[in-house]
């Protein structure tokens, strides 16, 4: 194990502020079709509709949002499981959405994914050794045949599983252990970026913390950059350096964890944060909660202008006509400080919804 650690550590110099991944104008529309043999497009689900963000080397970017907001589609686009309809994903300056063949395969090595469901993400017909070793079969240049078994055992050790269990099948493991196997597979090619899509939400509460700790340990050890997608706001806050909030295919607010949690300026972020139940029964008396009315509109037919306006208590005519840009709102631009972070709202204003932390 120490050998592997060293190799990987050598491959990644100390984290810098240089973005390793730049996402610009990312769009993914899924066509809605009718007919069996001759398909006719009758519309499109706008799952992701113009998303921009940067990921710094060694950084963790959390992406939060409710179901249908497009966060999982963003994950799939980042690892090239889906082709974007428009936009760019630049890895170290190179747009990877245009790549194919050998060049694509090379880039794929550097961006790996950890899946949500540890029960469906491991092939039940393969042994743990075959699952974790498969990356080497697809990319034989990474590890010569003779060394693979040893590498797999090192990886098992790194994720805290007994290396002797290399010949077991996934159903012999519990959910938390399977997720460790999935993480080991993601690490095999020594990627620089790991996209984790709800990696702990299928696990028991007492096991979630173990996996979060493992992810943090691995980040320090291997200098990984994470895109951490989840709906659990407290876990995202714990692990992320920066957080982006998505609603109906767009980012509505992005900033450092303190900026988002302690100084949210977008009404949706405020509602989302205030709706999270706080594990403190005393808080229910004096806590102010913003209860949104209605449901999230269909991404096939999103509202004009600001997409949140149908559920927003601040909505005015302007919100219907004008799409708010994701930028630092003019009111905060001069004063600086933690409120001055990008927020896509015409009427952005700070509102404290989470009990303030000591550090702010």
């Amino acid at each position, binding site marked *: 194990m120490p050998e592997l650690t060293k190799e990987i550590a050598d491959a990644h110099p100390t984290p810098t502020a240089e973005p390793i991944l730049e996402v610009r104008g990312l769009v993914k529309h899924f066509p809605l079709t009718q007919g069996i043999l001759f398909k006719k497009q009758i519309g499109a689900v706008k799952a992701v509709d113009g998303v921009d963000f940067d990921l710094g080397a060694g950084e963790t970017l959390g992406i939060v949002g409710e179901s249908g907001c497009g966060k999982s589609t963003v994950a799939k686009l980042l690892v090239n499981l889906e082709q974007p309809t428009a936009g760019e994903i630049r890895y170290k300056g190179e747009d990877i959405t245009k790549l194919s063949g050998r060049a694509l395969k090379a880039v794929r090595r550097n961006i790996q994914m950890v899946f949500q469901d540890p029960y469906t993400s491991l092939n039940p017909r393969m042994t743990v050794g075959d699952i974790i070793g498969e990356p080497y079969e697809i990319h034989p240049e990474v590890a010569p045949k003779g060394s693979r078994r040893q590498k797999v055992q090192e990886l098992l050790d790194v994720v805290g599983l007994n290396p002797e269990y290399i010949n077991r099948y996934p159903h012999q493991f519990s959910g938390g252990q399977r997720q460790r196997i999935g993480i080991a597979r993601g690490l095999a090619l020594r990627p620089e970026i790991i996209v984790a899509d709800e990696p702990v939400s299928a696990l*028991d509460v007492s*096991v979630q913390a*173990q996996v979060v700790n493992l992810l943090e340990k691995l980040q320090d050890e291997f200098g990984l950059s994470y895109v951490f997608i989840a709906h659990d706001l407290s876990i995202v806050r*714990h692990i992320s350096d920066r957080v982006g909030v998505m609603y109906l295919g767009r980012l509505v607010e992005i900033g450092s964890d303190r900026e988002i949690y302690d100084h949210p300026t977008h009404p949706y972020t405020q509602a989302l944060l205030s*709706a999270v139940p706080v594990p403190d029964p005393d808080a229910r008396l004096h806590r102010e909660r913003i*209860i949104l009315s209605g449901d*999230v509109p269909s991404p096939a037919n999103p509202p004009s202008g600001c997409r949140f306006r149908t559920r927003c208590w601040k909505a005015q005519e302007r919100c219907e006509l004008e799409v708010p840009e994701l930028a630092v709102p003019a009111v905060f631009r001069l004063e600086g400080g933690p409120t001055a972070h990008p927020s896509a709202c015409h009427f952005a204003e700070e509102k404290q919804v989470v009990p303030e932390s000591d550090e702010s």
Partner: protein
Amino acid sequence: MLLEVRDLQVEFRTRDGVAKAVNGVTYEVDAGETLAVLGESGSGKSVTAQAIMGILDMPPGKITGGEILFQGKDLLKMKEDERRKVRGAEMAMIFQDALSSLNPVLSVGDQLGEMFIVHRGMSKKDARAKSIELMDRVRIPAAKERVSQYPHQFSGGMRQRIMIAMALALEPALIIADEPTTALDVTVQAQVMDLLAELQRELNMGLILITHDLGVVADVADKIAVMYAGRIVERAPVHDIYKAPAHPYTKGLLESIPRLDQKGQELYAIKGLPPNLMAIPPGCAFNPRCPRAQDVCRTDVPPLAQVSEDRQSACHFWKETLRDA
């Protein structure tokens, strides 16, 4: 007391052996009170609820001991047709997955109305009027128009409201909600929990809320029963437990929630895994994962010790645990 569960025991006989899902559970709920049953998968919290409702699959399930007193009568001694009258009318259940709990080929109006036709002998027309009234009550907009729509035409939050409407239809004395908001988004979850709490107050019902979410519990519960490996490990009023847990498992759960001042540090994690129900460790079931375990924990099952008047803990070292908290 509205409902008293006394020393309930449930087993599942499977091909691979006997799984002891519930091993002596005792709790009670009064009218107008909310009891939260907290536990991980396999803790037996849902199985207990199914036994109370009488919807446990038997076989492979088997109730091997204990009693369930509902308004003073033991449900387990009732005949099946007597129990059927209690179910739905006197006690109702809300499930986690509203989509699979609703029949996809019947309109929601038909499904709501059926309750009144079967239990109250109402005419079809009256039942429909009642259905619309119920949908209004759970705040489904345009109830009159939507009453003849089918479940798939409603969103997740709306479907859960329909489930609540069905459960409330006959104004039961007791509602059991099994992870009612787990499948919903946070903003919708808040709407549904608020609605449930409000209706409970209005109708003075007893509510058993089964969940694994410590946040939801803190928001709505009056008292908590924490379950682990088919046993109650701690019972207490909600404020006491969050202030100072008297069982190491409860303490571990509370500490594993990420806190603001822990940012950048390792999260507290309970080591190991929940036990296999076919081979529950001897002594205290939590002992292999417990930081406080001593020899006595490996040999003797800890009884539910009285911590204070309305509080119990099944730990040999509850005093020490409480003192450290």
